[in-house]
């Protein structure tokens, strides 16, 4: 009798498991409507011109010199910013990963990130004004590095401090000098951190809106997308958004391949 009772209870539990799935349905419906449908709409709009299915929007973008220039400029700024962030940020992350009090200092590096980026950008602009620095591409790049450096340091620090110390100790025991240990052991093991750092700096840099405009009157790709939509050119704007989306998805594949998304999650 006891057996049949537990069997019954187990059945009830199983039955509830089935119904508990229903809990996810409102959210799935919400996401389909407010996340997936808008993205599908972008895809559809990119291929619609004058109420007809066509590639006209792509042709327009390809012939639009100003937009193409913006795209190249964004790449340039993005690459310079990302590279500078690695050069400046790697030593920071490396030094902090060796220290015991590193965690607290990392907090100091993240702290400014909590202040809204508009306020930080306007503050940077005020410093440039005070120093009589003329605003231009240089100040834009400085502002980008200032804004996104913590996004490079954080994943690098997470990866570097999770590397088992015995690897580099073993290399040293086997006769490698400091530089060799770093080049042959530490650097290769920190590549996942470098890759997530790159995507966390590069993608926001080229897609950001307002920073470049406020710090130098320069339009980057994000600003162009914004302008296209504000002035109602949804078609070309959608094509540009698709290009941006492609970058996001490609970089995400890279991140997932090198580390199962663990580093990027730790930013919060």
């Amino acid at each position: 009798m006891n057996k049949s009772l537990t069997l019954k209870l187990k059945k009830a539990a199983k039955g509830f498991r089935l119904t508990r799935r229903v809990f996810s349905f409102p959210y799935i419906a919400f996401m389909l409507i407010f996340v997936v449908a808008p993205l599908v709409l972008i895809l559809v709009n990119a291929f619609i011109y004058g109420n007809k299915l066509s590639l006209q929007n792509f042709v327009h973008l390809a012939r639009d010199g100003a937009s193409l220039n913006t795209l190249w400029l964004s790449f340039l700024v993005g690459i310079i910013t990302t590279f500078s962030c690695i050069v400046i940020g790697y030593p920071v992350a490396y030094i902090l990963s060796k220290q015991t009090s590193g965690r607290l200092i990392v907090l100091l590096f993240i702290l400014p990130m909590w202040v809204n980026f508009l306020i930080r950008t306007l503050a940077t602009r005020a410093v440039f004004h005070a120093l009589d620095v003329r605003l231009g591409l240089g100040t834009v790049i400085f502002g980008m590095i200032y804004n996104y450096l913590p996004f490079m340091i954080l994943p690098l620090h997470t990866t570097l401090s999770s590397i088992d110390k015995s690897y580099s100790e073993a290399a040293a025991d086997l006769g490698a000098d400091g530089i060799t240990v770093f080049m042959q052991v530490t650097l290769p093991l920190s590549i996942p951190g470098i890759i997530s750092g790159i995507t966390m700096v590069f993608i926001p840099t080229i897609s950001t809106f307002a920073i470049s405009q406020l710090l130098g009157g320069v339009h980057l790709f994000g600003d162009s997308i914004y302008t296209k939509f504000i002035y109602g050119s949804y078609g070309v704007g959608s094509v540009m958004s698709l290009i941006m989306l492609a970058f996001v998805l490609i970089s995400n594949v890279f991140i997932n391949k090198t580390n199962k998304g663990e580093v990027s999650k730790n930013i919060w």
Partner: protein
Amino acid sequence: MVKKLFSKGYILLILALLYTPILFIVVFSFSGNSRFTFSDGFTLDSYRAIFTSEQTPYLLQALKNTFFIAAVSSVAATILGSIAAIGIYSLKRRSRRVVENINQLPIINSEIVMAVSLMLFFVTFKFPEGYLRLILAHISFCTPYVVLSVMPRLTQMDPNIYEAALDLGANPFRALVTVLIPIISPGILSGFAMAFTLSLDDFIITQLNKGATTGIDTLSTYIYSSQRNAGGLRPFWFAVFSIIIVAIVTFVLIINLKKAKNIDQKEKENEKSA
């Protein structure tokens, strides 16, 4: 020794660079002018301006809007996301993967694409301009973070506890309320905090979806619209920014130090029991 000094110096230099603009604003908020001098001495004029400027009513309205939108959308996101996490946890592996990937979309997507896609959606389906669009948009980018912070609590939970509650005669609803929800509540709480701060902090998605004619501004869009064309920063803004900066820095420091203390305490307890 030299190496150590060099590393310390480097860290300090980068930190100084990171904090210069922020400290700069706070220091010169006491100068009362926007020429970056203390020729007028140390004054609280710019702080007085917060209450007396012609911009004051707009600033207060923007502040109200910011907190209203953040409160409504973060509460909605927390409820939607927590319930969803329990549901997603019980899904079969394959459908769970699909839903988790969709959940990842707003997190990895660049904000500008998310913003224009929502704008296109709202325009196409003629959603009324104003708070409704903004709140729906904020819920859609906040909820995934709630799901992400509740999920680990569920996967780390010992499923036997829930089963035990059922074996001891609790009906599924009671087991949910008295066993499951208390276990995941820290995740729900941190998810809520994250949703609230994300909503407060948002600029791009709000800027594109607030609608041109409604006149609704949040703090960030108001800052943007009043600064886009102006050459220099008025003393009024020095004071406003300083208050925001000091408030945020204090808040984040308190939370993190508390967290660090808790971790240390746990580590100590673990050592003792070991």
